[in-house]
């Protein structure tokens, strides 16, 4: 019985995160980590793709959906296409040059990266950066499936055409 009760509470909590709508986003309550970006693909230890720290838009369906909209509005598609990469690197991948932690992604968006990624800090508000982070993570299945939309209302690409195949050389 107790397990059922605890399970229900957890379910409710999970649902709360997923369904919450921050229509009046407060300034992010997270301190932005320092620049943890690296210039090399080498990394210590195993592959690091887990969310280690919480972040404001984690697992939130509304934020992911807004992130998806902003991804198009702010022309992220211009370089990254719909995640498959074009003149910019793909965003659906296993290896992240600058780390796959939410804070890394946040830093990448805010501060920009060499070879063309512009710095968006000061142009778009912090809450939208987190929404973009959530969306990019959802592209990599790092967000719960139940919070991620299965499709947009746009013409769909064949997912097999954009996922890098094993053995493909990185772009």
């Amino acid at each position, binding site marked *: 019985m107790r397990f059922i009760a605890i399970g229900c509470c957890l*379910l*409710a909590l999970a*649902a*709360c995160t*997923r*369904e*919450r*709508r921050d*229509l009046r986003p407060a300034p992010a309550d997270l301190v932005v980590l320092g620049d943890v970006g690296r210039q090399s693909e080498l990394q210590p230890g195993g592959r690091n793709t887990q969310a280690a720290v919480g972040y404001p838009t984690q697992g939130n*369906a*509304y934020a*992911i*959906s807004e992130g*998806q909209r902003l991804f198009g509005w702010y022309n992220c598609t211009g370089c990254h296409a719909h995640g498959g990469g074009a003149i910019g690197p793909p965003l659906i991948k296993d290896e992240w040059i600058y780390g796959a932690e939410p804070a890394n992604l946040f830093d990448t968006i805010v501060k920009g990266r060499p070879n063309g990624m512009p710095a968006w800090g000061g142009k778009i508000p912090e809450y939208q950066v987190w929404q973009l982070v959530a969306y990019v993570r959802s592209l990599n299945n790092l967000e719960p*499936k*139940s*919070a991620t*939309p*299965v*499709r*947009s*209302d*746009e*013409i*769909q690409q064949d997912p097999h055409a954009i996922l890098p195949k094993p053995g493909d050389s990185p772009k």
Partner: protein
Amino acid sequence: MSTLITERIPEAAEQDQLEWVWRNQRGIAGWFSVTTHQQIGKRYIVTAFIFLLLGGLEALLMRLQLAAPDNTVLGPARYNQIFTLHGTTMMFLFAVPVMEGIGVYLVPLMLGTRNVAFPRLNAFGYWMYLAGGLLLYGAALANTIPDAGWFAYPPLSGPQFSPGKGVDVWAQMITFTEISAMCVATELIVTILRMRAPGMSLNRMPMYCWSMLVQSFMVIFAMPAVMVASTVFLLNDRTIGTHFVNPAEGGDPLLYQHVFWFFGHPEVYIIFLPALGMVSAILETHSRRGVFGYPAMVLSLVGNGFISFGLWVHHMFATGLPQIGEAYFTAASMMIAVTSGIQIFCWLATVWSGRLRTTAAVHFVFGFIFIFVMGGMTGVMLASIPLNLQAHDTFFVVAHFHYVLIGGALFPLFGAFHHWFPKLTGRMLDEKLGKIAFWILFVGFNLTFFPMHIVGLYGMTRRIYTYPAEMGWGPMNLLATVGAFMIAAGGAIFIANVMRSLRRGPVADSDPWEGGTLEWATSSPPANYNFAHLPVVADRYPLWSPKEDRGIVVGLRNDRREVLVTTTLDADPQHRFVLPGASIWPFLTALGASLGLVGSVFSFSWYYVATVLGMIGLIGWFWPREPLEVEP
């Protein structure tokens, strides 16, 4: 009936045997395995009234938010959730199920039989309905609340514009309630067509049974449409990425609207037709004469049923359709005023030529006539395309459909409660309190909804969570809010009356209103087997014919749940039929199906779980067993 007579058993022993064969099992497992129509009907009614209270609370919240311009009781996100819940609850979890429940309770009694044709399907239907309601409100407790309206038009309700699981829950809840409605419709059709008392040819059937028959056929044609819309189109688009309603990939958002309203308009009549039957029953009993123009009434019921499938497009005039089609749907929409008009005229003729007792039930029926006729008039206005283009999606429409739905269904329902409460419980409701509740409800209702006609014409659109003060809609909205609280007060008095009468009401005899139809021929409340001897009928109102003309069926076995099957048209006895007894399998099957359906909102793999669990449930359900032939 002489062919059926085999031997006579003494009365008392007969009763004991019936009592034993038709008893409900004790204990928790017993409670879950009930299959008698009275129990299940009552469960439907009680559950539906709980949802009515929830829907009413949501309505009050909305009225609080709209009471003043620029109000901040609810934010936009909450307001959208609340109005979605309100519409969904009232349509799917209250209005249809309560009508089905009353039908399940009354129809076998009125037909003079012992149970519905498929008792286990009946139980299964109830559990599915309950599971659907629990799904919606359980999800609401976890803050997963749909917010795209009770109609959920894509693309707004689609995966891109309604993130989260709220709309999925909504769409799956529809599946539950529609399965339930289909179950009831199927069993009522078979019960009505094949289990009437001998001699009750179709033209001697009570008007209420006619209305349930037409309604059940409508359910069978209308409900699959909404399942196509909500499950096939919307849920698949949202959960597995299909493109039924995505224009970029060749889908069409208007297709959803067509299919939805092909269900949505008949839905109104699915709610309304049983109410027509109730009004006929109440008026003929309390005017002490048979309803005037029986054939015309039956034909117009059937007419309503057919025509209501031909006017769904009047919900979509603003989408811009070809003119010739629009003219057709205008004509069709107005045509339904003819069949509804005939019913009103026949009731007026009944009242004029009868000797009316102004009981509380009759008060509610007159309230119904006032409100419903006004709703009908605004309905004729809305059928006209030019007027519709101005009034559509404004508060004028909100006023209109509350006039037809509250006036057309809720008032008759309250009347029906006063009328049949003695039969259900064996106690009378207090007449004086009933009349007080009526007047408060009636005044409150008009105070709430009449001003909405005016603000609608003055430009107030529907589903807005707030409005600026300059528009001048404030005072009328305040009136409406005051009226809404009056309705709540009236409802509270009604509930108090029911609670009080359940314990201390005067004991009712079998026929307190001197009604003419068969439900009054048995004790109040009826025994589980309804009638010790199934009646034989020679007249439309058997209880009004001289006592010596009333016959009974003998020769049915009492040591198992046996009923008489009669022919479809003339109700000539055909053969005896053993109904299945109590069983927990309908509950278990419903449980398995519910698990699968709820899970499939989150992950596709639950469909397999549902299939397996459903299979196990059905195997248990249909497992061959010894016939129930145990002597007490």
